[in-house]
């Protein structure tokens, strides 16, 4: 299943949510990475045919996504919103979706989907009693009932514990290995990096970068990083750091050292060794610009 966005934009009055985004989705897992409010949900809703592009096109297998419910036969969409019918059990919710998808054997499809997300133990309890992670899995089970070729998951790992997260990633990888096209949005770099073959970075409604996740990872790490370092002897540590090739600059202040490096990996490996050799104890090593926003703003400016 192929998904093609061509100069897709979405605006509401003067507010531009998505601006001139073009990409093609191929089988495998694609991560849609961006900070909150970057337009990830808007892109997913446009692909899911739930928002009409203000300009440009969103096409699934040569059919426009907007106003063509027939495309849903091959599409599973899990929105970010936690809301599910609270009076249904997980199994009933999956069964409802199977019936709405008009699969041949809804009961068997619901049972299979519930097993895929490992929700059997709670499947007959009302969803109102579910934890956040269980609701997420119930939602994902509902998208799997008709074995869709295209899976659109908006922040699917929200509320899941680390174990559930890993299991869900394994399941998605298995689906991708079967030739499914999967688009997963996240605001967490690590999630996308671990899961996706290809990454699309969305910032301020624009596609800021795209490519294999290895390349995107490099883009995000091979760039100047700034650390605040405090130690038992800042002056001696500064002298030792300056001698390191990975160090770009060191500033000494009363509150500690501000160290810039162009090579994050080399720096983080060298710092503890260097401190140990010089018998200096480190009391604080704080990355000062590690917020995702700064990573992204770097990408935009770069």
């Amino acid at each position, binding site marked *: 299943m192929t998904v093609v966005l061509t100069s897709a934009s979405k605006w509401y009055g003067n507010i531009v949510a998505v601006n001139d985004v073009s990409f093609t989705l191929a089988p495998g897992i694609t991560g849609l990475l961006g900070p909150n409010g970057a337009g990830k949900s808007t892109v997913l809703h446009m692909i899911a045919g739930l928002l009409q592009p203000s300009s440009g096109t969103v096409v699934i297998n040569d059919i426009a996504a907007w106003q063509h*419910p027939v495309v849903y036969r091959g*599409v599973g969409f899990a*929105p970010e*919103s936690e809301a599910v*019918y609270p*009076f249904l059990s997980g199994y009933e919710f999956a069964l409802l979706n199977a019936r709405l*998808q008009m699969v041949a054997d809804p009961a068997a499809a619901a049972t299979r989907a519930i097993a895929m997300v490992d929700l059997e133990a709670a499947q007959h309890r009302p969803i109102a009693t579910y934890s956040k992670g269980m609701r997420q899995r119930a939602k994902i089970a509902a998208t799997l009932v008709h074995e869709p070729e295209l899976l659109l998951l908006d922040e699917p790992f929200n509320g899941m514990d680390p174990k559930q997260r890993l299991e869900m990633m394994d399941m998605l990888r298995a689906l991708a290995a079967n030739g499914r096209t999967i688009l997963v949005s996240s605001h967490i770099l690590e999630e996308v990096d671990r899961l996706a073959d290809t990454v699309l970075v969305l910032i301020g409604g624009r596609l800021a970068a795209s490519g294999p996740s290895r390349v995107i990872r490099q883009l995000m790490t091979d760039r100047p990083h700034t650390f605040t370092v405090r130690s038992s002897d800042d002056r001696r540590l500064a002298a030792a750091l300056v001698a390191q090739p990975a160090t770009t600059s060191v500033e000494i202040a009363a509150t500690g050292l501000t160290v810039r490096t162009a090579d994050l990996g080399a720096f983080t490996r060298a710092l503890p060794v260097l401190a140990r050799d010089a018998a200096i104890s480190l009391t604080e090593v704080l990355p000062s610009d590690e917020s995702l926003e700064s990573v992204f703003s770097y990408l935009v400016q770069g």
Partner: protein
Amino acid sequence: MSGPINGAIAGLTVRQSLARRRWIVVTLLAALPIVMALAFRAYGDVGDDMTSSAVDILSSVAFTVVVPIVALVLASAGFGAEVEDGTVVYLLAKPIPRSTIAVTKLVVTAACAMALNGVSAAIVGVIMLRGAGSAHLAVAFVVGALLGSALYAAIFLALGLITRRGMLVGLVYLVVWEGVLARLFAGTRTFSVRQYMLSVTDAIAKADASVFTAQLPHGRAYIMSAVVAVAALAFCINRLCDFEIGRAG
């Protein structure tokens, strides 16, 4: 499977309509005229005119309060609550024509309201008009209640696709338009569902003018009922086809 009615959506709509204790609210509302009728039977004076009292209860309490509010409560679960909490996505992102979704919701919501209000009016009729030789009057009120239930359900479902405050807007419409304006100004009666109910009831009952007379000509009530039903359905289908979800903020 892709007829005008979808079984899965129908089942879901019934459960939604009655969820969150709505069934208690609508059952109590529908029981109100019955309780009044029983009280009247038990405590009324022998000389009281049962027929005119039955007309009072049905036209004032049932048609004015119970029928529209039962329909409003049931319909607010339809699109209003689903749009509000975002669950409508599970219906719209399915290979089902939007027209099927709209028709199913409308038919099921109307059927629930008709069942409750129809049974309520019938029981009041049996309690008060039994043996009074006014069986045709009871039947007429049941038909009026069924018509009103269907029309109000259609209007309030459509309202849920216009505003997230469908319940509030619906109540304001009932109190201000149906309650005050349509009583005071003859011209507004052409656009009052309550007047259609009364007129159709009157047409069927052919009751003695001293007991009950509708203020809207019968023909106009039939035509306007059809217009309202078709317009509400067309609006729901049209609106649902263009319905966008996922708008940020």
